[in-house]
């Protein structure tokens, strides 16, 4: 069931009304049933997999909690990690591993399994489960009080299929508390959902029509067409994923749960390191806490820090998808971060130290800030080529032809003609760019607060103008073909 489907428009109000209408002790049962129903609407058989992962992790955590020695704890944690990673590897990476092996050793007697199910959201709930068991092992969180609560923690429908990847210390305690209908909280949630729908239906799905036209047949296009599609993809993926996150966080908020922020204006970032602190925050921090720091983080010398950073980004690339495109995408981002650390690591450290000590930090000139943001965008957009291209060959074609006939764009009519060929005008390309500008204007308006906080501080007519604008833009320019969210495949 997609958030942008009629089914969800019926499902969500029913769940919310039911949740507030039933007695307190039944609320979590109700949410659990709703969450499994939500998940099973893709493939009922998926439920078995998530149930298996839930049972395994829950009991491993129970055994970790009861274990008397550190060695026993470690054993239970290791077995839980092995089981969950094995499931993930089998369903997500088996064919990739086999195909890669066959490419190197063509005579091996193994074959890809074409009947393997693509399990929606498996990377998300596996990581959430792993995070929980590691937290229990580290003693950072108590084990779940009962199986029902833990099962709901793993399967909570707003964030089940594409995050945010919640931490047990944030979500689990909320599941023990009672939630009553709260007008302000519900409206805050609805506003965030509306903003998420705007980003998804208007910008992401609109841009997707143009991006897909180019990237599904790249060799037909050159120069400015490839650039336009690549730039639009940067906005498509941002609005798709942050739109999903906003809907998820908003939906959870309506019911009474506070999920972690997943995006913080990433395209305003001044450098690639900052970008990764602001993009898919729940995953970045997950990797930081459970991969980078256990590897030694920055505690084992400079060289080791760079290696750890690089490994973390490589794993992040592989997490996103079972293909070499994603590995290379991760590697480039890893390289960016290592280089940034080498060049600006000390300066960043000093800056953070000053902030920590409460000393004033020199302000960046706005023009320089814009130039840095644009530069960062260009670097990041370069990596999106590998993320979006259907094959490595396509990615290489795009990179080799990005600037073909570039000088011709100053020829009269050439740009318009090139844009017509990728369906820029027929697919509301101009309106999409206007909406992107509107989105950036709203993000600037937000400043350091969240959208909801900013709106709540505004005068009533500003609030209502915002609500009306969002709805009208969705109605006029939204795409209602029920397209998938990009991150569902991960």
């Amino acid at each position, binding site marked *: 069931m997609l958030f942008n489907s009629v089914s969800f428009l019926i499902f969500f109000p029913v769940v919310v009304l039911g949740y*507030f209408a039933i007695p307190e002790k039944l609320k979590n049962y109700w949410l659990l049933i709703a969450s499994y129903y939500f998940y099973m609407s893709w493939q009922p058989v998926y439920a078995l997999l998530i149930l298996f992962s839930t049972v395994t992790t829950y009991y491993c955590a129970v055994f970790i909690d009861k274990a008397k020695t550190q060695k026993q704890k470690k054993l239970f944690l290791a077995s839980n990690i092995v089981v969950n990673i094995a499931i993930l590897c089998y369903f997500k990476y088996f064919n990739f591993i086999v195909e890669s092996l066959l490419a190197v050793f063509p005579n091996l007697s193994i074959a890809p399994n074409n009947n393997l199910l693509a399990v929606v959201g498996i990377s998300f709930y596996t990581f959430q489960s792993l995070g929980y068991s590691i937290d229990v092992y580290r003693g950072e969180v108590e084990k779940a009080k009962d199986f029902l609560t833990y099962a709901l923690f793993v399967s909570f429908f707003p964030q089940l299929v594409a995050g945010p990847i919640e931490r047990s210390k944030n979500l689990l305690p909320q599941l023990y508390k009672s939630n009553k*209908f709260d*007008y302000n909280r*519900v*409206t805050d949630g609805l506003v965030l959902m509306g903003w998420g729908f705007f980003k998804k239906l208007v910008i992401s799905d609109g841009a997707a029509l143009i991006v897909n036209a180019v990237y599904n047949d790249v060799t037909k296009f050159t120069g400015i067409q490839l650039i336009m599609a690549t730039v639009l993809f940067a906005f498509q993926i941002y609005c798709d994923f942050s739109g999903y996150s906003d809907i998820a966080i908003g939906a959870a908020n309506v019911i009474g749960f506070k999920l972690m922020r997943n995006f913080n204006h990433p395209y305003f970032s001044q450098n690639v390191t900052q970008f990764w602190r602001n993009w898919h925050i729940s995953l970045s921090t997950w990797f930081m806490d459970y991969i980078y720091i256990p590897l030694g983080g920055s505690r084992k010398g400079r060289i080791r820090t760079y290696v750890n950073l690089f490994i973390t980004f490589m794993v992040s690339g592989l997490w996103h998808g079972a293909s070499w495109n994603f590995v290379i995408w991760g590697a480039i981002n890893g390289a960016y971060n290592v280089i940034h650390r080498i060049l600006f690591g000390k300066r960043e450290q000093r800056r953070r130290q000053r902030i920590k000590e409460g000393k004033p930090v020199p302000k960046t000139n706005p023009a320089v800030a814009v130039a840095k943001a644009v530069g960062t965008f260009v670097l990041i957009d370069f990596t999106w080529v590998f993320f979006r291209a259907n094959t490595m060959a396509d990615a290489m074609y795009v990179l080799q032809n990005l600037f073909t006939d570039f000088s011709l764009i100053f020829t009269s009519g050439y740009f318009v003609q090139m844009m017509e060929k990728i369906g820029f005008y027929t697919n509301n390309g101009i309106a999409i760019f206007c909406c992107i500008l509107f989105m950036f204007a709203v993000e600037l308006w937000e400043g350091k607060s969240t959208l909801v906080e900013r709106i709540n501080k505004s005068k009533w007519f500003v609030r*209502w103008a915002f*609500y*009306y604008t969002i*709805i*009208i833009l*969705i*109605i*006029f*320019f*939204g795409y*209602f073909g029920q397209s998938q969210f990009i991150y569902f495949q991960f």
Partner: protein
Amino acid sequence: MLKLIGRLLLFLPIFLGMMFVSYRVDPSGLFWGAGFERMVCDYMLQGQYVDGYQQLDGRELNEIYARECEKAPQILVNGSSRTLQIDSSFADGKTLYNAANVGADVYDFFNSYYIFAKESKEPEIFVMGIDPWIFNDGKENIDERSNKEMFNEFLVEIMDYESTEYTPENPMEKYKALLDPSYFQASVDTYFRNQNTENQPEIVPMEEVYNNKDIVKSPDGSIVYDLNFRTRPQETADGDALTASVNDLLRMTDYDQLDPYYTQLFEDFIEYLQQKDIKIIFFLPSFHHYIYWAAQADMGKYHCLFKVEDYIKSTGDKYGIPVYGSYDPDAVGLTNKDFMDGYHMRYESLKKVLPTIE
């Protein structure tokens, strides 16, 4: 909760506005029929002659006309383009509507009556322009523009036949479109496209109707062919007929027998109309000599053309229905000069064959 509902109601104007625009513009013609045809129909109901026939979906127009006209026409004419010139001058002061369709097939034959019947606007007289192919049992029988769903509806609703392909439409179903933002977006597109006058039908002044460069649609549904077509040299018209005669005759190939299902339906339909006291007239529009001779020369292939005429005449006798015209031009005293091409008689020649309808 009530406060929330109250606040949500403040968004209602947006959705009501969206529904209003979708309903008024109605890009798919769910509520008002297709836009261009709707405009043509409005002009026709005002008694105007209209240009833009090439863009017109005649079937859609007839449906809209049947729905929008205040009273049932006293005389209803059906058939193909071969009967489309039959106009009110044949009607002896009665009201007439010509619901014939270009490329009409057997579905159109029955649908042209059904569109009026379902609006309870049955005529007093029904002039059936019968082409020989409407009983064709072969695959060439059906025109892609005709409405099979409506035909199945006709079978069930009027003839009380069984049809597995017809499920009664839920009248509320179409209103779902009003809640669909995609329909609203299409409405906005259509609205702005319609602002371009190039896409709109134009009124032809009465005095220009017979001098017009394009086909003109008359307020009674008949058409006036364009000046060039009507006045082109007879050798050109005969040349067209000759070319048509050396090719396969229109929808007459793969025609082994008169389809028993359709002949049975035809007779049941006649009985149904007669029970309703609707007077029936059969009209067989003639073919150019070259076409008719080509059929005579290849009886193995075109024998059904002659069988249909015999069948219509015997059915006329059986039910007491007058039969006018003949596929054979000689039988009704027509010469080559009575034709504009192989299949279409001149307006004046129609007058020779079909008397005033009373």
